[in-house]
Every structure is written in C-alpha cells, then in structure tokens.
C-alpha cells in the first residue's frame, strides 16, 4: 500500500494510478483545489509537494507517494483573517480575486515562490505566476498581494 501525507495526515492511497487531483477532490473531499484544464496550463489545480508548487491534474498519487502534499485547506490554521497564512491575508487585503476559482492555485504558487525566494523581484513574481490563469483579470491585484506578502505587510 502506498502512503501519502496530505496536510500533515499520513494516508494510505488505494491506487497508485489514481489522478492526484481526483484523489484530493473526490476521495478526500478537499475541493479547494480546482480543476481548470486538465493539462497543467491554467494552474487552478496547484498544490505543494514538499513545499514546491505542483500541478495535481497532471500527476498520479503514486508519483507523490512518500511525499508531503499541502492543499489550500492545509495552509491556514483557523477561520479568521488573523489565522490565515500571510499570503492568503495579502490576497484578501488587496481584494485580489473576483470569482475566486483560480485563487487557491495562485496562493499555492505564491507560497512556493516565497519558500524559494523570500524577496522576489517583479520579474520573478511574473515568471512564477505566468502559467496561472485568472479570466476575471485580477492580475494587477495579485501582483500587489504577492508584493505585500513578501514585504511582510500582511
């Protein structure tokens, strides 16, 4: 039996071939990670694997076996603004969202970016988020939110 750690809980995954996004959403009920395109091009399905952004729609449970998967549900410690992850708080404070469907993916990639590079340049921010789509077009606000989180001002 394969084991995979999801949001700190070690789980036994029934089938290594199961699509990771389907496993998270339908088997574990962690629906905060979204389906957007199924081909790794829109970023809505982004989770962290061992702290780095990963497109869950393009991979299997078996491929991340033994690793630690973090979904958007595993990022905040509570329900209040104060208990959110600073990146989440920055998105709320900049109103960097409209419909919000893409936002969990942007948040996860931003956390991954700041894990790698705590003080990214504007170019690094754009590069890290270039393969995410927000059809509502809130990019200017998303950039401001990432800057705010990087400044430690959230």
């Amino acid at each position, binding site marked *: 039996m394969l084991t995979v750690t999801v949001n700190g809980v070690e789980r036994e995954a029934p089938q290594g071939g*199961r*699509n990771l996004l*389907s496993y998270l*959403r*339908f*088997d574990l*009920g*962690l*629906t*905060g*990670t*979204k*389906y*957007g*395109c*199924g*081909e790794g*091009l*829109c970023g*809505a399905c982004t989770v962290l694997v061992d702290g780095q952004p990963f497109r869950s729609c393009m991979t299997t449970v078996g491929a991340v076996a033994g690793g630690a998967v973090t*979904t*958007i*549900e595993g*990022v*905040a410690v509570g*329900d*209040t*603004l104060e208990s*959110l992850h600073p990146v*989440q*708080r920055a*998105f*709320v*404070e900049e*109103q960097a*969202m*409209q*419909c*919000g*469907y*893409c*936002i*969990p993916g942007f*948040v996860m990639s931003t956390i991954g970016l700041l894990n790698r590079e705590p003080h990214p340049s504007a170019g690094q921010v*754009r590069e890290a*988020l*270039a*393969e*995410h*789509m*927000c*059809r*509502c*077009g*809130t*990019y*200017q*606000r*998303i*950039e401001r939110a990432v800057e705010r989180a990087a400044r430690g001002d959230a």
Partner: protein
Amino acid sequence: MSLKIVGDVQVGFPQLRTGYGAQTYGNTQPQTERATWIALDADGGITAYAGKVEYGQNIRTGLAIEVADELRVPIEAVTVVLGDTDRVPWDMGTFGSQSTARVGWQLRKAAATAREVLLTLAADRLDLPVAELEASAGRVASKSDGSRALTYADLLRGQEIEREIAADPPVTPASEFTVMGRAHKQRIDGIDRVTGRAKYSQDVLPEGVLYAVIIRPPAYGGRAKRVDLSAAERVPGVARVVEDGDLIAVLGEDDEAAALGARVAQVEWEIPAGQPSRFDLPALLVSSGQEPFVMQERGDLAEGFRGASLVLEATYFIPFIAPVPMEPRAAVAQWEGGHLTVWAGTQRPFGLRQELASIFGIEESQVRVIAPEIGGGFGAKSPYGLAHDAARLAKIAGRPVRVAFTRYEEMMWSNFRPAAIVEIKSGSTSDGRLVAWESVAYHSGDRVMIGRRGSETPYDPPHVKSTVYRSDSPIPSGSYRSLGAAVNHFAREVHMDELAAAAGLDPVEVRLRNLSEPRFRRVLEATAEAFGWSGPRMANGHGAGIALGIDVGSYVATAAEVSVQEKEVRVHRVAAALDCGLVVNPEGAANQMEGSIVMGLGGALFEASDFQDGRLLNSTFARYRVPRIVDAPRIDVRFVGDDTTPSTGAGEPGIVPIAAAVSGAVYGATGQRHRELPIQRYL
C-alpha cells in the same frame, strides 16, 4: 420573532423590457409576485435576499454595503443570500449589469423601510417622538440622550412583523453615506475564497453521487448513427451506461471510471458535410444578413454626404471569441421522490427551474435550483443545458448524478461571442466635424439584440443611419460581456481615429469636436488627463490610443500605451474613466473595470476561435491564448460620475472601448491601421 420586509419581484426583470434579457428569456415568469427582501431575526441578525448570483462581480459585498448603510450597521452584520430558488426573490437572470442598479436599489428601499419600522417601535418603547430618535450601530437611541437606546434585537423581541416596502421610503442621501462609496479593505466572502471553502458547482458531491461523462459528437451538428456501449459497461467502476434519445452517457462510481468508459464506448457519428470554416466567415456574415433593423436614423444621408469634403469608408472584422470562465460548467441533480434539486453554476436559476419543470412535467414548486459560487460566466452561463442532462441521468439512475465539463467541452459546447462585419462610411468637413455617418453591421446569431447593443453613434453628425443585420452563425454564438457593444464600439472608435488621421487632428480633439453630451466629454477628458495624453506617437517610440463608449447606461473612456516588437504587442499601461453614477463599492467597481480591460485585451490582441468542418480547432489552453499575468498592464481607473445620479452598470463598460484604444496605440507605434481583430494575427 422577526421583522420581514416584503416587496414585489418586478425588479428582477431587466430594466429594458424590450432588450436582450426580455427577448431571450422573457418567457420565464415569476411564480409569486412578492417575496421577502430583508429579514431581521430576534437576535439581531440581518439577512438580505436577492435572486442574482455571484460569479465574480462581488455583488454579495455590494448589496451588503447598501443594506448596511441604510440600516446603520457594519457590513459584517449583513448576510446576503443569493441564487437559491427556494429562498430568494424571483429574478430573470444575472446579466446586463442590473444587480446594483435594480436589485441594490430595491434592497436599499427595503432596508430604509425596516429602519422606519424600528424607529417607530423604539418611539413607542422609549416614549419619544420618532423625530427625536436616530438609528446607529444597530441601535435606536435618543438624539439628545444616547443612554436611552434599544438594540434592534431588543426592539424585535416578541414581535412578528411583516411590512411591505414603502412606496417612497427615506433612503439615505449621498451626503450622509457612511458605508456606501467608501473604500472597503475586504469583500465579505474574501476569506472563503482564499481558503478553498467557497463551494462551486464543481465541488458539490452529495452522498452516493455518480460521476457521469456524456458522449458528445466531435463536431457541431453531429448525430449518433450507431452506439455500442458494451465495452464501456464492462469497465470496472462503471455503474451503468445510458442511451436515452440523444443523451449518451457513462456513469461511474468515480470520475476516472466514467471517463475510461466513455473513451472505450463505440459511437459512429454522422457529421453534416460542407460546414463553413473561419476563412468563409467574413463573406458568410454579409451574404447571410437578414432582418435589417435601423437602430438610429436622423436627417438625410444623401444630403449629408453632399456637404462633406472628407469621405471615409472602411470595413471592420471581429471574429468569434470564447468566454473561457475558469470554472467549466458542472451540474449535480438529486431526486427525492418527485422533487428535484439541482446545483448548477447558472446565471439564471429561475429560468433553469422553469426549464426543468417543463422537461419533467412537474410543478416549479417541485424543483429547487441552487446556484452556488460560480467560477466566472461573463454571460456565457445563461444557457445551462448541462443541468437538464444531469437531471435526466439522475432520474434514470435513481441516484444523484454529477456532470462536469472538461475544458475541451467547455470550449466546444459553450457559446462564442458573435463574429461581426461592420461597414462604416462617414462624411466630414475639412476640420473634422462629422456631417454624415452610415453604419451597417452584420452580427452572427439568431439573438438579434446581441448585435444591436452599442450600435448607435454617440457623436453628433446631423445625418445618421445605423443598421444592424443578423447573420448565420456557423458555430454556437450567444451572450458575452457587453454583448455586441464591444464589437460595435471597436469599429466606430477605430473609424474615429481614421477620421482624426485623415483630417490631421488629434484623436481626442476630433472626438471632442463631435461630442455634445457632457458625460462623454467628461470621461474622455478625465482619461486623457489621467493618461497624460500627448497624441498617438509617444516620445519613447511607443504608441498611444484612446477610445470612448457607453454601455449599460455608463459612460467610459480608455487610453492605452503599447510597444510592438515583431508579432507581439505589449500593453504597458491603461488609464480609464467611468461614469456609472453613484459608486456603491469603489474597490469592487475598480476591480470590475480592471478585469474588463484585461479580458478585452485578449480579444483585441490574440483571441479568436477557429473552426473547420464543424470542429473547433483551438479548444484547449495550449491552442487558445487568454491574457496572463505577463500580458497584464498597469491599470489606473477613475470614477468621474456624480453620486447623486443613480448607479448604472460597472461590470461591462470597461471592455467596450479597449480594443479600439489598443488598435489606435498600435497605429501610433507602427503607422499600421488595424481594422481586424485579433491584432496580432495581422501584424
């Protein structure tokens, strides 16, 4: 123990009863004429109900702001319930930027009525005249002695009151707003959206749900000739297969079993031959034009052109583009006896309820449609046939059924923004004053209102005729943010730039010479000032463009700065001014403007849906480019309306002038005029 404010549901009809909404969906009628709009319960909780849905416009916050201001409470005290046919007032649909303009106003009147009831109750309890009382911070207090006060909960204890919305309630004047028009740091549903708690139709998973994959033809108009589902049925995890008339589906205990079953199903298709391709489109639009409708006519064109010293004629082409909401459609249906519940990301929950009742021959009271959070729609999610399929499959299976589009299906089976050809002939004096304007537009699709929107010129030529035809649509077309307005504005505003160039005038100057409406002049001048307008050719080698327009009653202008390198246009910054009257939620309205501009850049620069033999050629994100963060300019939005003017729409106007502004900017940078979209295809 409560106070309910009830009122009629007429505001759920779009304001222009002869317009697109009424024409397309006007067969949807309310089952009840009255509904509860606001309820205060005994512990002071305030709930506002609206038949609109939330698909990113941020109306949940906007409506809460309006109610909070009228009831003198903080925004967080107000809960807004949307989009559930069992709970909210009837509404035709969330389109045409009507939420703030119509429903917000209704809720303000309802809240003002509630405040009057509370004041009257307090007058009785405190033995003071109403004139000596004021409502503030969730209490009614004596104006002279603040210690004599009762909370709303105190006032309502033991009461059971229902009141009609007053005909002319004392709504708060703009000068006394404390919540409306102020900057709010957060939206009331912001935390749910960054934590993954917000539930979309894709996320609804009732106990025992089956995952369905519907097998659809590979091309438009395709019909199944021979269907063999035996291999699909044998796939482990497939619960059953369905062939019910035109509905062919595989139902699985999990999503991957259903998908595998659909992949191994054997279906032979009959595809109609001779379907047009994208290369046939411009000619098809003109040759199939029918039902000409004169949108605007004054003076005598022949006389006008006789008096013109400068005559320009040009043709503009706008292809189909895809709406591409980030959330592909999903629908979940559950039958309990003869009662049907459907969760669907539809912009028209009440319309869908009526359709479902009609399909199954049951009363509308036996159908509940719940529109949860919707991951974008932009007009495209008004038709929602996927929910019909889910309900049919759930009935057949005897279990809840979930159907969700893949991205490919969402691209293929949604509606595209109609393609169009617009022919414009203008006559002017040598100093750039229009004397004659003739415009003939051909928009694809059978919903004629789409092409008519925005087809009147806002300029002042004495002799005008503007005609709109509807033409055949080789692929499904339907509503899209601003309908045809963005298309019509592109043609007209590029033409104004051509007039400027021909007359040797600045694009701002030529527009001002032909505009008498002060609201147009104001947005144009404000945009030029915010942008630092100095003409199309900028000193740094970049180009600048500017355009104006009107949509959903709001006046808008936009300027853009671009640079062009080979086949790529880079938009560096955009400045825009909007006059939408009273701005209830400035941060929300600015967000909508920014989003409209970014969305419009896609259609201006690189989006076009290509098709051949009934097949969509660019149905994935690998082949269909939409704007990304690297494409997004810096955007500066200003509101220049008057807060005593009633609110008009803010969600759609931003997309209306942007393509022409970009075309003008590319001209400034390259000297090349772009009359066809998307511009990058023609560089």
